[in-house]
């Protein structure tokens, strides 16, 4: 017997035939097909029972109610809370994608101290005990040296429990320097204080108003009032007339029944011009002005000096002059004034979420239109909302060091003789530090909320000032631009994992308190800022310790909100629509107990200011018009987060390719202007202002007034993560502050600019 190649082949063939008679080929084919559909490297999220937890979004002051879908200990998706009085289920993209920040790479995962040079990005993990000890020692040392007033605290709000505790801490410690980061509503709130004598916010009944006259407010572009306005806009039938005054065809302007493209910076004049027509034609609410108005006509002060009233003030603003200043036709001005005055429930809105700050005079002039309509405290009108009163306080005693420190002037100059009624002047802070001789007037800075190194105007000046501050603590949840430059990071938890109270948002027409609560377990080693502050107070001992009789923030909130806590726990918000019922006789708390068209307190402040003329302050933008013939105006978009917290990757994903392309941001220019500078669509160009310059691309847009360059706010980040940083340029860095002589606040509505092809 011989075994050769043929036998082997035969064996193989026999095997092959046999195999076909077994399940092997058929079963293997099937299994491999199934295997090829297994993608073990793509995640399979774990399933389980779904829960919907009511909470509130905390990423902007808008205070929208949210419902968070959870599965197990995972926060899956954020949706609007349909019964929440603020937003009635509406949410902006920022709120919906908050889970991305929550789980994302920009979170600071535990306390850290700087290891390398400032801004180098080298950090060393430390324990909370060590972190708190470091702060305590620094603060104790400054106090022993008699310099408690050199401690400053920057916060993005002064209205929630956490910020109240910080302010209280500074007072007990001995510093007057609690500073709130700027908001477009600053001037409007000052106007409210001056003309109505109230600290608080202005509410507009957007849902019932039949005529909304918006002076450049980003009602449907920006976040701050978006929840309220967009849900109201969704409810409204087409009879509600929205008029948007803005030089750029923003999304709000696009949705408005009428777009009024007035020159930027001319809003004050326009408001007075509308007043002129309304007064001239006698279309104002005579009963309201008779019963509740002051200084409508010329008036005499106690000393017997006569001062011009509103009628005299608007006299000079005849339609022809206003037409010239605003670039609008007289006809538009006349008809706008008349349709506003003849509307049944009109509101005039200014400073609510606009991209650029507004001046005090603009705020007063726009607010006066509401008084002309006499639409206070009635449906579809204007409601005056007090500051939150739920934070009940035990009286506190302070020691001598503290009271000496508290008597020192504020480092930002707010509340000084010059700016007696202004509470915070964050934009003056960099200048105050940079111009100081010798040591920085701020020796320790606590940044608790807000992101001043990104959001304050003229970033370069802010950076310079921060370099001079020897000790900076950031309480930021994220590695933002300010945290990057800090010495110590004490991360605050995200609002999806902690308790946070949110008081009535701006623009809301009645009192609503909302409560963010731990939706899932804390992800990282974070601690609420208020807990840290309470701990530091305890460590410092003495009167400071006694001022903080609470275990922690939760304990403080429960005790402060005693009556409302249960409701808040249950439904996530507490709403007091009775706050709408206050009668007209009780709402004005000025010296005259009336709405003051020309606030006496403003006059007093102006006297202190050395400016006795009752005129309108014109805000001049710095820079040489010959070298910088264009005006750069910032604009905000619902798809770009312009505030302290940057975009989520999802938001950036929604941006069109003519807003951001690769790492370039586009500026919008009218084709007419572009052709003057030889620019075409997509060209790379350099925008120069007094404060700085940026490389951009050009997007030709017919919807923008010739002579303007519009740039979105919220890009050009360096912090957060690779998904956010390095895209575009920061428009705030290009706009230097322009000080409003009447308030000291920044009122730079743009910046003189030049553009050239790169």
């Amino acid at each position, binding site marked *: 017997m011989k075994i050769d190649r043929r*036998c082997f082949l*035969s064996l193989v063939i*026999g*095997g092959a035939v046999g195999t076909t008679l077994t399940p092997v080929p058929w*079963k293997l084919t099937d299994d491999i097909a*199934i295997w090829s559909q297994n993608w073990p490297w793509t995640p399979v999220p774990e399933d389980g029972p779904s829960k919907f937890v009511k909470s509130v979004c905390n990423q902007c002051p808008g205070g929208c109610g949210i419902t968070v879908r959870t599965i197990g200990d995972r926060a899956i998706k954020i949706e609007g809370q349909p019964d929440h009085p603020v937003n009635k289920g509406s949410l902006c993209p920022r709120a919906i994608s908050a889970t991305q920040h929550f789980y994302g790479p920009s979170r600071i995962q535990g306390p850290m101290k700087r290891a390398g040079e400032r801004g180098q990005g080298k950090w060393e993990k430390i324990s909370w005990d060590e972190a708190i000890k470091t702060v305590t020692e620094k603060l104790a040392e400054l106090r022993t040296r008699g310099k408690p007033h050199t401690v400053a605290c920057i916060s993005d709000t002064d209205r929630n429990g956490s910020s109240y505790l910080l302010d209280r801490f500074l007072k007990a410690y001995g510093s007057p320097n609690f500073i709130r980061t700027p908001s477009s509503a600053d001037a409007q709130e000052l106007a409210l204080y001056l003309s109505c004598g109230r600290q608080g916010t202005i509410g507009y009944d957007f849902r019932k108003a039949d005529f909304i006259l918006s002076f450049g407010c980003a009602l449907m572009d920006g976040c701050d009032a978006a929840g309220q306005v967009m849900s109201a806009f969704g409810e409204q039938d087409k009879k509600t007339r929205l008029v948007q005054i803005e030089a750029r065809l923003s999304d709000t302007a696009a949705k408005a029944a009428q777009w009024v493209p007035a020159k930027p910076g001319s809003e004050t004049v326009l408001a007075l011009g509308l007043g002129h027509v309304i007064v001239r034609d006698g279309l104002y609410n005579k009963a309201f002005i008779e019963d509740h108005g002051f200084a409508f006509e010329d008036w005499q002060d106690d000393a017997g000096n006569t001062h011009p009233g509103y009628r005299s003030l608007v006299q000079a603003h005849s339609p022809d002059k206003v037409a010239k200043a605003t670039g609008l036709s007289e006809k538009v001005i006349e008809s706008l004034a008349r349709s506003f005055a003849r509307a049944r429930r009109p509101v005039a809105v200014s400073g609510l979420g606009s991209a650029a700050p507004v001046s005090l005079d603009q705020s007063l002039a726009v607010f006066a239109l509401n008084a002309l309509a006499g639409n206070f405290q009635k449906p579809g009108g204007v409601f005056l909302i007090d500051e939150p009163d739920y934070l009940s306080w035990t009286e506190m005693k302070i020691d001598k060091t503290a009271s000496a420190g508290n008597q020192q002037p504020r480092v930002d100059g707010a509340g000084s003789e010059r700016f007696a009624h202004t509470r915070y002047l964050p934009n003056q802070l960099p200048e105050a530090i940079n111009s100081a001789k010798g040591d920085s007037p701020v020796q320790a800075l606590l940044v608790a909320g807000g992101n001043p190194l990104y959001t304050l105007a003229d970033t370069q000046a802010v950076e310079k000032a921060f370099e001079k501050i020897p000790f900076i603590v950031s309480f930021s949840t994220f590695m933002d631009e300010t945290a990057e430059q800090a010495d110590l990071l004490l991360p605050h938890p995200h609002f999806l994992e902690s308790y946070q109270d949110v008081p009535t948002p701006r623009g809301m027409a009645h009192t609503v308190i909302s409560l963010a609560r731990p939706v899932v377990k804390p992800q990282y080693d974070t601690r609420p800022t208020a807990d840290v502050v309470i701990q530091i107070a305890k460590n410092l001992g003495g009167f400071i310790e006694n001022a903080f009789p609470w275990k922690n923030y939760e304990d403080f909130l429960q005790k402060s909100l005693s009556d409302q806590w249960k409701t808040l726990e249950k439904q996530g918000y507490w709403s007091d629509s009775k706050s709408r019922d206050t009668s007209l006789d009780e709402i004005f708390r000025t010296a005259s107990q009336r709405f003051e068209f020309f606030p006496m307190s403003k006059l007093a402040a102006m006297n202190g200011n050395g400016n006795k003329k009752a005129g309108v302050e014109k805000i001049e933008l710095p820079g040489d018009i010959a070298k910088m013939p264009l005006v750069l105006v910032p604009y905000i978009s619902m798809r770009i987060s312009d505030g302290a917290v940057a975009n989520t990757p999802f938001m950036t994903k929604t941006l069109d390719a003519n807003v951001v392309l690769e790492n370039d941001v586009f500026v919008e220019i009218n084709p007419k202007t572009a052709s003057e500078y030889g620019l075409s669509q997509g060209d790379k160009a350099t925008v120069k202002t007094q404060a700085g310059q940026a490389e951009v691309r050009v997007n030709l847009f017919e919807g923008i007034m010739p002579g303007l360059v519009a740039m979105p706010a919220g890009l050009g980040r360096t912090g957060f993560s690779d998904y956010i940083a390095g895209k575009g340029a920061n428009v705030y860095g290009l706009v230097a502050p322009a000080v409003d002589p009447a308030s000291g606040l920044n009122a730079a509505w743009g910046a003189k600019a030049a553009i050239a092809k790169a």
Partner: protein
Amino acid sequence: MSTQSDNQTAAAGNRSSGWVVFVFFMIGLVASIISGWVAFPKLLYSTKQQPIDFNHQVHLEQMGGQCNACHFFREDGSFSGSPTLEECKSCHMYPMTGNENEQKFIDEYVNQDKEVPWLIYAEQPPCVFFSHAAHVKGADMQCATCHGDIGHSTSLREYQENRISGYSRDIWGKSMLRLGEAEHGRRQKMNDCAECHLKETGSKGNCFQCHK
């Protein structure tokens, strides 16, 4: 092939004879058939033991004969599947019997706050959406129709996992040829679903009905 070799043998006597070639053919044939039917299934499937043994019968009796006492529908219509540790703990926080499996459950899972990693016989791939509500509530089907009489079992049978696809053997069924009735309820491959749907509803259904 063999005819050809016969001719060649006559021509050149130094080649192996026809029957030798045939024997080799048969060896190949038989060996492959045996390995295909006997060794292949053993190789294809790995056998896994459940983390602890479980007596469905006892639980069923205790819970009033209702499967849905532990395997229930949630309010939103979703099906709970295997009970979670929390649900088991509502009875078994502390030992109720002297059973060693119960003791193991308490020691290793309750006390360590760990979910039991049950091996699910009817687990479908993650791309499959299966609605228990549609079948149990909508079509009024019995649990045993698909899952077999597991409710009356006194211990958990071994779990066989397909080494290639990674899924339970129950999906294909024990019989490699998919002949006859499946031992444990029904086979659960896509065609099995489609076949039943065609019979019961007149249509195999659309893709999204079962896929996500």
